[in-house]
């Protein structure tokens, strides 16, 4: 056999040096541009100086590592420089260092102030020391690994404490990590022991390393933790698919028993009964003009009539009014009157000029995604003035698209929402409660007020001006809007509301009336009564998406209040509406979506899923108007003083375990309470989800990340052993098949190979240049009783391999028995796992070689 190799011999030294230089040039060029960028766009003394030192440090590091000669020149230059300084400064040279040193000690002890010159000098010295330390570490491969570990540790430290680190330092650190990673791979995977060769290879791979870091730089890196928006989108999609499948499965299954699960989602009208399941289809996307402070109730439909366990909308008429000018009758939409009533109630209570403390005004842009409905969603009180839908009409308080095809499904609207958590709200209610349009003089309203000037700069005046503007534009039907009989309008409407919105079917059992009386006993006014009912339902009933079916012939509200005592939002809302009507308070059911907003962050865009669909109650307080109430357990009340997290809501909506949600509730509520101490007057009491509150954002994101990590881990945990197991089984099977299918000669080859591997495990290996005969003679100290067998087996192999003769079956058997005997010895010597590992390796090698 003739072998000729010239590995490494033909390496061209010139090109190698060129490579190293090009590498250095790439690094330095990158660094140079980074520094220029830093200086031009972000000139900051601290940053630039840090960058400069980092540049020196990392640049020198790279030079030392890959161009030792230049490294030496670098050190010599520093020494020469110091020498020159010493010569110039003469005797003061040592004093400079001693001054800096003592200053540093004093500074570290807190006795000295931060002198700029000393700080800079300390930095320079520190960096030089670091460079020297790194230089020493760079000398060996393991030193470089240690360095990379230090760099990683520093990165983790900086990441953990969220220190602002210059991009250039991160880039260089990443380059270094990748370089060492490649070197480790070359050393251990590729088994390149020649360090010079490794370094040359790495230097040639430098463009790839730079490309990696360059791409990393291209991806935007914000100061916020990863949001996992797309990942969560995928998870939501998967969840939704899963829910669809399970709900379909359940509905198919239950269909036989006459029970059907409903999917969560908006519907115009309510049909009580059955169970609901999650539906994570994205219904719409909402973009707020400015970040909202509290959860937002998007109203899509209003139901006023309760019968046969369902709620429907019967009152579709607009409000009619007369005009002093011509005494004719005109109509105006309900949402305008709601606004008007609010205006007058504010005016009457003397709070008109403090509306900015009570109203949250905002503009939203709604874009329909997965929802298909003619209903137009809005936030009460809507301001028509800037609603962007061209053609819509109202049926009572329900707004519907006039021509959805034309208006598409994207629109803007502005609203002024009453903030019930505001301290002023209570005063507002107190001042208006008990007001009766009939008892009070209509003349106090008169006609429409004139516009208020905004000269004072008061924000509330702006509101008033805005409101008046809206109202004046809304009464367009009347030829002279300022001649509208406001008092008559409001009085007629109030009496109509009292008539329509208190109706109840005869089937409502007496005990429901009795319960209503019992709950509201001792309450002074309608508002307190409504609050009492809200509180009663919230605290005494359990939220459940699977409350079971309503027995045939039973009233749903009665069954919920007295027997099942569990249900979802529609049950709660229906019960509150019915109970309030039982004591003569007008109520209605509002259906739509609850948008969970983050009160502290700057998030303005929200995705609303069908699982956010919700129903709540609005009670009518004469003189005030319709006020929303939230009777559903686990949902934050409109007026709760203590802020509750919305996690429980989310938990319920996403069908997570209730116990875990309550735990999350308590822990998060604690966190929130502590933060509320500082900002209690500003923060919203109703809202609960806090996507962009830093800690919770992290937790929320971590949830996504952990979810994915968990899935990946589970997949890995399942896959790795399964694949390994299958691989092992296949290897052994293959080995057996090859062995059994082999002729005697091949079997001897395989047995010999196995014997050699077994001996190798006993540290008995054939030396370089040693013949098999010499080897046989040498290994006579291995297990006396099978020594002869090994000798014979090797002789059989030699006869076959070199003699060109075939072996007999007996000879093959002998070799096989020898192998088995050594295997038995190894079985005793090694642990079960060790022996298994050895057997597997032998089987694998033999299979690969003799396949």
């Amino acid at each position, binding site marked *: 056999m003739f072998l000729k190799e010239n590995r490494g011999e033909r390496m061209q030294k010139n090109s190698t040096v060129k490579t190293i230089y090009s590498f250095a040039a790439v690094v330095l060029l990158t660094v140079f541009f980074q520094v220029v960028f830093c200086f031009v766009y972000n000139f900051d003394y601290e940053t630039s100086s840090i960058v400069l030192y980092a540049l020196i440090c990392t640049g020198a590091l790279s030079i030392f590592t890959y161009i030792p000669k230049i490294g030496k020149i670098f050190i010599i230059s520093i020494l020469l420089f110091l020498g020159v300084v010493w010569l110039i400064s003469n005797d003061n040279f040592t004093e400079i260092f001693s001054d800096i040193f003592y200053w540093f000690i004093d500074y570290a002890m807190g006795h000295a102030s931060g002198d700029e010159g000393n700080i800079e000098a300390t930095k320079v010295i520190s960096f030089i020391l670091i460079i020297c330390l790194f230089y020493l570490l760079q000398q060996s491969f393991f030193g470089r690994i240690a360095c990379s570990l230090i760099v990683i540790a520093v990165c983790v430290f900086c990441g953990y404490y969220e220190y602002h680190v210059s991009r250039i330092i991160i880039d260089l650190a990443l380059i270094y990590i990748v370089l060492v990673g490649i070197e480790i791979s070359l050393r251990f*995977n590729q088994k390149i022991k020649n360090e010079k060769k490794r370094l040359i290879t790495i230097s*040639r791979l430098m463009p790839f390393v730079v490309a990696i870091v360059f791409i990393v730089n291209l991806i935007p890196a914000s100061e916020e*933790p990863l949001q996992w928006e797309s990942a969560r989108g995928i998870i939501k999609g998967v969840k939704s698919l899963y829910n669809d499948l399970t709900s379909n499965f359940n509905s198919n299954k239950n269909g036989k028993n006459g029970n059907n699960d409903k999917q969560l989602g908006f519907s115009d009208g309510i049909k009580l009964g059955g169970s609901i399941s999650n539906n994570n289809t994205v219904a719409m996307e909402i973009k707020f003009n400015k970040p909202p402070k509290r959860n937002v109730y998007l109203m899509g439909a209003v139901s006023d009539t309760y019968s046969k366990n369902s709620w429907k909308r019967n009152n579709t008429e607009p409000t009619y009014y007369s005009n002093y000018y011509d005494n004719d009758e005109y109509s105006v939409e309900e949402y305008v009157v709601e606004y008007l009533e609010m205006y007058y109630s504010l005016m009457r209570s003397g709070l008109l000029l403090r509306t900015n403390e009570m109203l949250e005004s905002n503009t939203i842009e709604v874009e329909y995604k997965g929802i298909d409905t003619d209903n137009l969603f809005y936030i009460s009180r809507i301001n028509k003035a800037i609603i962007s839908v061209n053609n819509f009409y109202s049926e009572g308080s329900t707004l519907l698209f006039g021509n959805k095809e034309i208006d598409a499904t994207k629109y803007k609207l502005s609203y002024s929402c009453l903030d019930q958590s505001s301290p002023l709200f209570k005063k507002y209610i107190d001042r208006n409660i008990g007001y009766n349009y009939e008892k009070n003089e209509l003349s106090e309203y008169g006609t429409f007020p004139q516009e208020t000037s905004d000269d004072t700069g008061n924000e509330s005046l702006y509101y008033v001006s805005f409101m008046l503007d809206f109202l004046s534009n809304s009464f367009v039907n009347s030829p002279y809007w300022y001649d509208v009989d406001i008092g008559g309008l409001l009085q007629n409407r109030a009496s109509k509301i009292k008539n329509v919105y208190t109706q109840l079917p005869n089937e409502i059992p007496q005990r429901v009336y009795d319960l209503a009386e019992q709950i509201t006993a001792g309450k002074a006014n309608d508002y307190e009564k409504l609050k009492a009912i809200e509180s009663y339902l919230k605290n005494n009933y359990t939220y459940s998406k699977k409350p079971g079916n309503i027995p045939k012939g039973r009233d749903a509200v009665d069954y919920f209040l007295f027997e099942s005592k569990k249900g979802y939002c529609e049950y709660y809302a229906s019960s509150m509406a019915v109970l309030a009507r039982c004591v003569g308070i007008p109520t209605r059911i509002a259906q739509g979506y609850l948008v969970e907003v983050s009160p502290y962050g700057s998030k303005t865009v929200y995705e609303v899923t069908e699982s956010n669909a919700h129903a709540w109650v609005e009670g009518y307080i004469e003189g005030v108007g319709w006020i929303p109430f939230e009777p559903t357990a686990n949902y934050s009340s409109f007026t709760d003083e203590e802020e509750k997290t919305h996690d429980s809501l989310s938990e319920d909506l996403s069908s997570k375990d209730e116990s875990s949600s309550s735990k999350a509730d308590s822990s998060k509520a604690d966190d929130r309470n502590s933060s509320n101490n500082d900002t209690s007057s500003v923060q919203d009491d109703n809202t609960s989800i806090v996507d962009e509150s830093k800690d919770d954002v992290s937790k929320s994101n971590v949830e996504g990340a952990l979810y994915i*990590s968990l899935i990946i881990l589970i997949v890995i945990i399942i896959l790795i052993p399964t694949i390994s197991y299958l691989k092992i089984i296949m290897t052994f099977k293959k080995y057996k098949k090859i062995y059994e299918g082999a002729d005697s000669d091949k079997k001897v080859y395989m047995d010999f190979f196995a014997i050699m591997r077994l001996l190798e495990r006993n540290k008995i290996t054939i030396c370089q240049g040693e013949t098999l005969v010499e080897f046989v003679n040498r290994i006579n100290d291995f297990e006396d009783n099978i020594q002869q067998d090994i000798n014979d087996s090797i002789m059989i192999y030699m006869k076959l391999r070199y003699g060109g003769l075939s072996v007999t079956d007996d000879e093959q058997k002998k070799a096989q028995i020898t192998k088995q005997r050594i295997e038995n010895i190894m079985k005793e010597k090694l642990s079960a796992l060790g022996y298994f590992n050895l057997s597997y390796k032998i089987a694998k090698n033999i299979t690969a070689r003799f396949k």
Partner: protein
Amino acid sequence: MLRNKIAMILVIVITGVFASLYGGPVTRGLFYLSFIIPIVSFLYAVYVYFSFSPIQQVKPQIVVKGKKARYSLRLVNNSIFPYTNVKMEYYSDKQDIENKKIFNSYCVVPKEEYLVESDILCRNRGLYTIGIKKIIIRDFFNIFKISSYPKVVYKVRVLPRLFNLNNIRSELDTEMDIVKTDLSVVNKQERPDIEMRKYISGDNKKMIHWKASAKKQELLSRKYINNPDPDMKIILDLKPVNVEKAITAETEDKIIETALAIMKYYQRCRKRTTVVFSDENVNQLEVGTDNEFNIFYNKSAELEFKAQKTPSDCIIKCLERSESGSHFVLVTNSISEDVISMCTRAIEFENYVTIVLVNSDAKNKNNIEIHQKISVIPINKNQEIVDVLERK
């Protein structure tokens, strides 16, 4: 490689969790780095896939079975990036590569060159590919593996071994003995017959039948008639052999080599033989001269045992040409009743039949009744052709 993949996944997961917990460019940088690395690594592997091209050379490209061919592999990197991990897999079903270093994985930096040479032992006859079967390319982090195939493949023609027989056993030699007889004389002489004629002046003394002359009291010479030797027809059974898979190639080679040995013997004896073999049709090839022999010898390297015609068909074909006076030598791995009956028929037409059974199971012929005039010569697995075919 699996270890590296797992490590990379773990790094992505860990940095992902880290980046989810803490914001800022450091955590993001680490996270992005962890998943950009595999992408760039893969792109690098793709680059190597397209740019790496090993150069192979085999000399000579025609070898005799059992002889070695010289194989050289040259790895040159003319690109600008190194090939960090390239490994070659070689064809090994019919060849043995002796220099195991050729199996190593190589890291070739730009302008670097490796030259690895090895002898390749060609174990079996045939025309087959030699050298690199597959190139396995790995990226610099050893995460991905891409397989490529050499653009140029090298085939060697491995000729069967050619045995020179000094003599031939009697079953195969109906006419002459190469050791005892001067072939040139034998070829020229006519066979003596019992018929005699009166002595004619000038007759060779050796031609005088002294005993008969004494009886008749007059000189009688032996009367020679021109009796040609029987035609030697070597029938190669190219039907798939019926042996263990491990010795299939060996058996096929042995059948060819047996036929060649007999043909060569007769060619040396300057006696023409006809080799009959079949693929889709029955082919007959007369071999007498060196050139004719070499043509068949070269062809024999590529003969495949996929014949659609049986040996019986070959015998029938031969009988169609000359009904009697031929010596059929059937070289086969197995005999069937059909073959035996056809051989018996040939004998009935005053032909000679010898069957050479190569690597055949003993039980193969146990149940078949063989005509007593049919000679069967078995060549077992461990027997050498020369040992069997030469006269003891």
